[in-house]
């Protein structure tokens, strides 16, 4: 896109309020739990109090006899089908039949006149348990192969074990001036959306099922329900209600969604369930705890000669997205810096805890923490400035990484320059640390993230996103898309894109999202894919509609269609404002010429994945990049950390709406601070240690620093008007930047998150006694290495000159 066109946007680039902002500030937005239907029953699940146990017998007689109870079901009342979000990990039951594998596994469900009665009925269900030994850590799971949590996987209690090698790492280390080996641990954390999951099911008298749910992935829920309930998918409709916060926590099909469907079928009533906050902590699917070992070779100038990373993920009791998570701990790191040789080994271990899955950044914050803290250590040893060192080694645009990812545009160098300048990094770095017991420090880190996964969860050749646009004679345009707005503003973004192409106001675009009977499939709000994939589909549909309108208007005005533009609510001749028709009139002419004006747009990512096994993982149409600087102080007496300022520059390709992009960046920084300093999903005596919002610490307004957001635009050819993702990447630099700033402030290395006051005090004490002043993992799990798949490094190869993007070959003017 030329500079002239860039300035020619009328909607794109404007800080417009979201279309749903008005509904959200007045309480008008109807979330799943706000729905009330006539005759609606309320459901509750009976969940396991045991981390690992056999179910000998379930007796529901007393519960069924309770007045006000409509139905009680167990796993015996559902088809005996296992499910799971990934085709390779079908290991869940909505209501467990023989065995529970974690505290919180559901075993029975009740529908009753109200929530209280349903809860009371759950207490009247008698379950005869036979407790089994619970494996509550990766070490325990690997040490006890005789106790199997699942029968499948890559070894006893090993869900997935991968090993990939791109080039000769030993030779790379031999070439290096400095080789560092470090170990890191990244504690698990949970999404903690403000809205607890809720769902309403209505199995109508016509034999058709509708489920309204707070889900980020209605399409996968639709597919799962068909399988689990053994009902034709054609008779199931899944509608994603506005989601009150997702962050990855509403991406799996869940027991409660399935249970309400079955209860509705049995009772002939609509059935609602709303999880309690405690249940949400156990439902989880959050950040994997990951233990890491990383070995990297550096030259004196700070070039990376090669890197070898091993990760061990504590997966919890089920597969969830775990196979993807395992790959993501290894495959995305090489996108940011020149890394000619790379080896990655990752293993996900089953434990008897709630399953981990995708949380904002999915599998990548952990290895990013390891790499960025290690680079900080290397920079010190090499006598290099940590920002300058990274600035020298950023990946070249339009090249491939060692592991065959194609990096298109990269604004990382500009991101680094901008945060260094805005924060006055060098001055801050050089200023005196001490201010009484408080010591100041600044830390630096960068990151890269995918703009949408290049492959779908189940293999298929269909679009990843679709849009249907219908123009109405009133001048309104209906935009149907399966995308799920989880607060990121996808509904609004789609309206902006269609409005830009059609020259109308966003308010004239009516977005109908996430309804599986009405809207073309979008795979879901995950992997930062929606703006790019749905956006490209929306642009294609809008261009097709505009083409049809231009044809009709051209005939009327007796000008060639090529002379027309759509702007300011009119379609007319570019340089003659007299020769223009209002949009609504153009639609009438168009409909008279073509019939109903409804046009599809489809998007699937470019086909350029490598052909080796696992080569699709981490592939994305383009990557976002971020650089962050954290200024903080540490109280040496209490170990308390106060974060004062964060500068974050993010390469978003193009800010379609800078207001929304800033919101995503600020929210990412916030969530990163929470993970860095306080959030942890940990267990004691088989139970969640902090299953409440009071005990699970998350940052309040008081803990938040000033965030200085800088948006960098690189106009990526893969994105809608050049846009890349913004919702996940900016989280990644925060944790390592904080760790590096703590070291700068008080000279101790906390090689794990969260970085809590007790760890700082422990490290300071250690240092005072002449120790290394480090808190971090000391031991690595015992797991025999797997023979790696050896593939030639693709580092530095040019990106494919011609990119085939399915469904996007025909672009109308």
């Amino acid at each position, binding site marked *: 896109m030329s500079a002239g066109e860039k300035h020619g946007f009328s909607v794109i680039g*404007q*800080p*417009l*309020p*979201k279309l*749903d*902002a*008005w*509904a*959200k*500030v*007045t*309480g*008008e*937005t*109807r*979330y799943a*739990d*706000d729905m*009330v239907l006539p005759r609606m029953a309320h459901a509750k699940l009976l969940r396991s109090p045991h981390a690992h146990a056999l179910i000998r017998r379930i007796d529901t007689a007393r519960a069924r006899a309770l007045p006000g109870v409509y139905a009680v079901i167990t796993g015996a009342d559902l088809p005996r089908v296992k499910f799971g979000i990934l085709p390779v990990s079908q290991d869940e039951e909505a209501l467990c039949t023989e065995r529970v594998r974690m505290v919180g596994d559901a075993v029975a469900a009740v529908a009753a006149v109200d929530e209280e009665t349903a809860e009371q009925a759950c207490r009247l269900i008698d379950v005869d348990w036979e407790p089994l030994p619970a494996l509550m850590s990766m070490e325990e799971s690997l040490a006890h192969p005789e106790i199997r949590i699942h029968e499948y996987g890559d070894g006893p209690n090993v869900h997935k074990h991968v090993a990939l090698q791109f080039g000769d790492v030993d030779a790379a280390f031999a070439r290096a001036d400095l080789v560092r080996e470090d170990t890191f641990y990244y504690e698990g954390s949970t*999404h*903690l*959306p*403000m*809205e*607890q999951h809720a769902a309403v099911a209505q199995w109508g008298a016509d034999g058709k099922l509708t489920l309204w749910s707070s889900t980020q992935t209605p399409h996968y829920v639709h597919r799962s329900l068909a399988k689990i309930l053994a009902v034709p998918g054609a008779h199931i409709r899944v509608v994603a209600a*506005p*989601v*009150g*916060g*997702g*962050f990855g926590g509403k991406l799996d099909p869940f027991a409660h969604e399935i249970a309400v469907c079955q209860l509705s079928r049995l009772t002939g009533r609509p059935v609602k369930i*709303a999880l*309690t*906050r405690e249940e949400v902590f156990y439902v989880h699917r959050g950040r994997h705890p990951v233990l890491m070992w990383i070995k990297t070779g550096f030259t004196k100038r700070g070039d990376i000669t090669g890197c070898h990373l091993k990760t061990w993920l504590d997966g919890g009791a089920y597969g969830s997205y775990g196979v993807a998570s395992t790959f993501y701990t290894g495959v995305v790191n090489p996108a940011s810096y020149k890394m000619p040789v790379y080896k990655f080994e990752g293993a996900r271990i089953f434990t008897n805890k709630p399953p981990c899955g995708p949380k904002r950044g999915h599998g990548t914050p952990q290895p990013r923490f390891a790499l960025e803290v290690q680079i900080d250590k290397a920079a010190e040893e090499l006598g290099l400035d940590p920002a300058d060192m990274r600035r020298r080694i950023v990946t070249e645009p339009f090249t491939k990484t060692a592991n065959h990812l194609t990096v298109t545009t990269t604004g990382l160098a500009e991101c680094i320059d901008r945060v260094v300048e805005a924060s006055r990094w060098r001055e801050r770095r050089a200023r005196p640390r001490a201010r009484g017991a408080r010591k100041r420090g600044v830390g630096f880190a960068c990151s890269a993230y995918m703009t949408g996964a290049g492959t779908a969860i189940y293999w298929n050749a269909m679009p990843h996103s679709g849009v249907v646009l219908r123009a109405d004679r009133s001048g309104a345009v209906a935009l149907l898309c399966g995308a799920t707005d*989880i*607060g*990121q*503003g996808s509904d609004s973004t789609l309206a902006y894109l269609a409005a830009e192409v059609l020259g109308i*106001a*966003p*308010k004239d675009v009516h977005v109908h999202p996430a309804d599986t009977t009405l809207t073309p499939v979008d795979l879901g709000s995950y992997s930062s894919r929606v703006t790019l994939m749905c956006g490209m589909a929306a642009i294609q549909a809008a261009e097709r509609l505009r083409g049809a309108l231009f044809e009709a208007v051209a005939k009327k005005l007796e000008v060639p269609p090529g002379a027309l533009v759509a702007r300011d609510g009119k379609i007319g001749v570019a340089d003659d404002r007299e020769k223009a028709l209002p949009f609504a009139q153009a639609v009438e002419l168009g409909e008279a010429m073509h019939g109903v004006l409804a046009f599809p747009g489809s998007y699937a990512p470019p086909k350029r994945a490598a052909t080796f096994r696992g080569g699709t993982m981490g592939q994305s149409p383009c990557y976002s990049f971020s650089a962050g600087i954290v200024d903080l102080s540490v109280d040496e007496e209490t170990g308390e950390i106060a974060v004062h300022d964060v500068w974050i520059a993010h390469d978003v390709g193009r800010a379609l709406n800078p*207001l*929304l992009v*800033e*919101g995503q960046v*600020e*929210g*990412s*920084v*916030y969530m990163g601070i929470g993970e860095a300093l306080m959030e942890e999903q940990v267990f004691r005596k088989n139970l969640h240690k902090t299953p*409440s*919002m*009071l005990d699970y610490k*998350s940052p*309040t*307004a*008081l803990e*938040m620093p000033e*965030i200085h957001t800088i948006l960098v635009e690189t106009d990526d050819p893969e994105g809608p008007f050049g846009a890349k993702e913004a919702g996940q990447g900016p989280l990644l630099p925060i944790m390592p930047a904080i760790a590096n700033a703590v070291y700068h402030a008080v000279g101790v290395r906390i090689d794990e998150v969260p970085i809590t006051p007790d760890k700082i005090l422990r490290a300071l004490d250690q240092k005072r006694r002449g120790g290394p002043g480090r808190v971090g993992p000391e031991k690595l799990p015992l797991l025999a290495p797997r023979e790696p798949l050896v593939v030639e490094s693709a580092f530095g190869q040019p990106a494919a000159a011609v990119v085939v993007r399915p469904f996007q070959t025909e672009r109308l003017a």
Partner: protein
Amino acid sequence: MKTRIALTVNDQPQDLLVPVHKTLLEVLREDLGLTGTKHGCELGECGTCTVLVDGEPILSCLALPVELQGRRITTVEGMADGARLHPLQQAFAELGAAQCGYCTPGVLLTAQALLASEALPARDRIKEALAGNLCRCTGYTKILDAVELAALRMSRGRASRGGASAEASGEMIGTTGTRA
């Protein structure tokens, strides 16, 4: 056991017959259909269910209507003056302070109580007042910006007319505009 309760909710008198153990949150949502008030934890930990009782923010998940006989309750549905938004609502919409929007009603009402007692609170003071309202989307930045903007507009409105000006009292619902 049900008991009879008289409350004034969003300026409307309400005569209710509800079980004594039912919380204000439940009565608002289930008996009065005011679903703008959300539950986030039902243990008084997150601030999501905040409403105003005689102008003071309280957690409706911990309040029992039997103890609130005759009191004046304001929920998010009562913030707008007819079709005219409260300046806080206007500023939140304009500045992107509501992402998923689930915490927004509670935050708005807490901020309304703050601005009723302090016309132009400093940013740190706003942070302190909102520290009991958790938000997982925004990082609070745009929320703080929006409260500051609303405070400024309201005090300008008072200064210029001794009453609500068009700017101070917000736009009509659904008016779209760019950021101020």
